[in-house]
């Protein structure tokens, strides 16, 4: 029996009345200050309309006010769970404008720091997704591992969240002498943790059945709505900017692109592009990131960590450039327009979460209210990246 009919038989004539509920902006499972106006009939939603902007800090406007290098710390605040990527994207765009080539050692440091940051960001996403659904135990396990990554990145660049590590022309600091063995030791440890994670939650029968076949996004819809990164790949396309349009040190590494294959299993009702695919693609990406960091440490080249000829005053010639990188929440693109001055004429940050929010109104139609929480968590949206 369809849910609508079920409601009708249970409540008779009083059914069919629309109730409008506010979820957020201070709701623990909205992942930041986001408000959802839920139009519901009992437990079934007619639609959930996201209201964003609570965390708008006018970062694009600030980009027109400060100098090119001065904007770098602000990029950290675009996505504070994966700030390395925001750094890297902006640095790449300005380097493209300047025509700078970055030394290999700096590119490797960028790749290492980004992949570690990707694991940290995915751990938060996976842990909080499990918690939103009701499995509280995995979250502290995920946070414990993320703490180690924060410690490693702190040793590398002195900050735990807002790194300001990538600079225009290279990175801020060289790798400390004793850092590499520490990192290797942690990677060996993390391999075992990933196996443990699968036993703990990924293959937990209740968890898988809860997410199988839920809020399916077909590939065509995902592309049309502009989903990127893990959300897009979960819908069954093998596309990763690190492979499709390689940048930095990524051509040197050998890694696979995980994509949605109905991991929940057809007998449980798993469909390509359901919530469990979005969950499990991230778990697999963590494994790939570990492999990339290992390869980068093995091949770590000597040399400079900063391009030798970075001008003190950065004044690119008039023109425009766009950089596209594969961030933790999918494609992040910086579009920087220069008019020849010391300050950018326009800085635009295209982020994955912003458009992932746009799909929620369409997807929420006919879902239960409890499923909305799973949907938001599976899309891995964070408020600062939406609002900028």
């Amino acid at each position, binding site marked *: 029996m369809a849910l609508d009919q079920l409601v009708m038989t249970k409540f008779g004539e009083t059914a069919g009345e629309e109730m409008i509920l506010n979820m957020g902006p201070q709701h623990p499972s909205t992942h930041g200050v986001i408000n959802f106006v839920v139009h519901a009939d009992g437990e079934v939603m007619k639609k959930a309309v996201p209201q964003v902007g609570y965390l708008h800090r006018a970062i694009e406007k600030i980009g027109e006010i400060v100098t090119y290098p001065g904007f770098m710390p602000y990029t950290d605040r675009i996505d504070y769970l994966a700030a390395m990527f925001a750094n890297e994207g902006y640095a790449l765009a300005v380097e493209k404008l300047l025509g700078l080539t970055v030394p290999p050692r700096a590119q490797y440091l960028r790749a290492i720091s980004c992949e570690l940051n990707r694991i940290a960001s995915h751990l938060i996403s996976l842990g909080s997704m499990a918690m939103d659904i009701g499995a509280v135990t995995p979250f502290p396990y995920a946070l414990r591992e993320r703490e180690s990554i924060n410690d490693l990145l702190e040793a590398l660049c002195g900050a735990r969240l807002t790194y300001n590590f990538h600079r225009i022309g290279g990175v801020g600091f060289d790798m400390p002498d004793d850092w590499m063995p520490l990192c290797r030791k942690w990677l060996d440890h993390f391999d075992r943790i990933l196996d443990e994670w699968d036993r703990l939650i990924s293959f937990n029968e209740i968890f898988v059945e809860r997410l199988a076949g839920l809020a399916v996004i077909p590939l065509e819809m995902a592309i049309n709505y*502009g989903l990127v990164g893990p959300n897009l790949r979960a819908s069954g396309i093998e596309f990763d900017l690190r492979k499709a349009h390689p940048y930095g040190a990524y051509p040197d590494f050998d890694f696979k692109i995980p994509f949605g294959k109905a991991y929940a299993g057809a007998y449980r009702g798993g469909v390509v592009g359901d919530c469990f695919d979005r969950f499990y693609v991230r778990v697999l990406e963590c494994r790939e990131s570990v492999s990339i960091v290992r390869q980068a440490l093995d091949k770590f080249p000597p040399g400079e960590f900063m391009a030798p000829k970075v001008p003190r005053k950065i004044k690119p010639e008039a023109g425009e450039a766009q950089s596209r990188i594969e961030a933790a929440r999918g494609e992040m693109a910086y579009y920087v327009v220069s008019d020849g001055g010391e300050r950018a004429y326009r800085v635009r940050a*295209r982020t994955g979460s912003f*458009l992932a929010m746009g799909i929620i109104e369409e997807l929420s139609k006919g879902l239960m209210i409890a499923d909305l929480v799973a949907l938001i968590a599976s899309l891995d949206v964070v408020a600062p990246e939406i609002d900028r």
Partner: protein
Amino acid sequence: MSALTFEQIHQRLAGKFGEAVGPLQPAKKDPFCTFAPARLLEICRFLKSEPDLAFDFLEDLTATDHPKLNLIRVVYHFYSYPHRHMFIAKAEVNRQISEIDSVEQLWKSANWMEREVYDLFGVRFKGHSDLRRILMPDDWVGAPLRKDYSEAGGYRDISNVRDNPLDLYLSMDRELKAQQAAAQPAAGSQSAAAPEQHAAPNPPAKPGA
């Protein structure tokens, strides 16, 4: 399944639409071309539906403001997953009229990005299903990313003007010094020694100086 270059895509478009597609700008970094706003939808539909172009992904939609030219340029970044090529186009709109066709019917991702451009640049999109402010509050005045935008003094009785904390410190410092000067007797030898006691920011005196 073959990627086309910018030039090849531009040639296809120019061959089909003639003058509605501007010349390829020899921009130093990323080349782009302009579309005539009147035929924007038509060209975009062609970009999306033609099998060898197949731009199924509207990667980015934003704008730049040019008050001296009295123009707002709406910037479109297209990408094709089947062919893995991209294309950049701009459509120029008058700053006063600032109205252009919405491409939401072709790419749903345009819905939120056009709302953002409407919010921050004040460009209205004809045919948009839900054109509301998205990042700023609904009753906000002005388009913040326009170059000539100046903030109002506040929003809903919340002032956005803050005193410079340094001014506060300096005025406190002046007051303190005035109080000290008033408390000191006007004798010559003592008043010469007094400032040194309170002048903390001064470097310590060199030994033997």
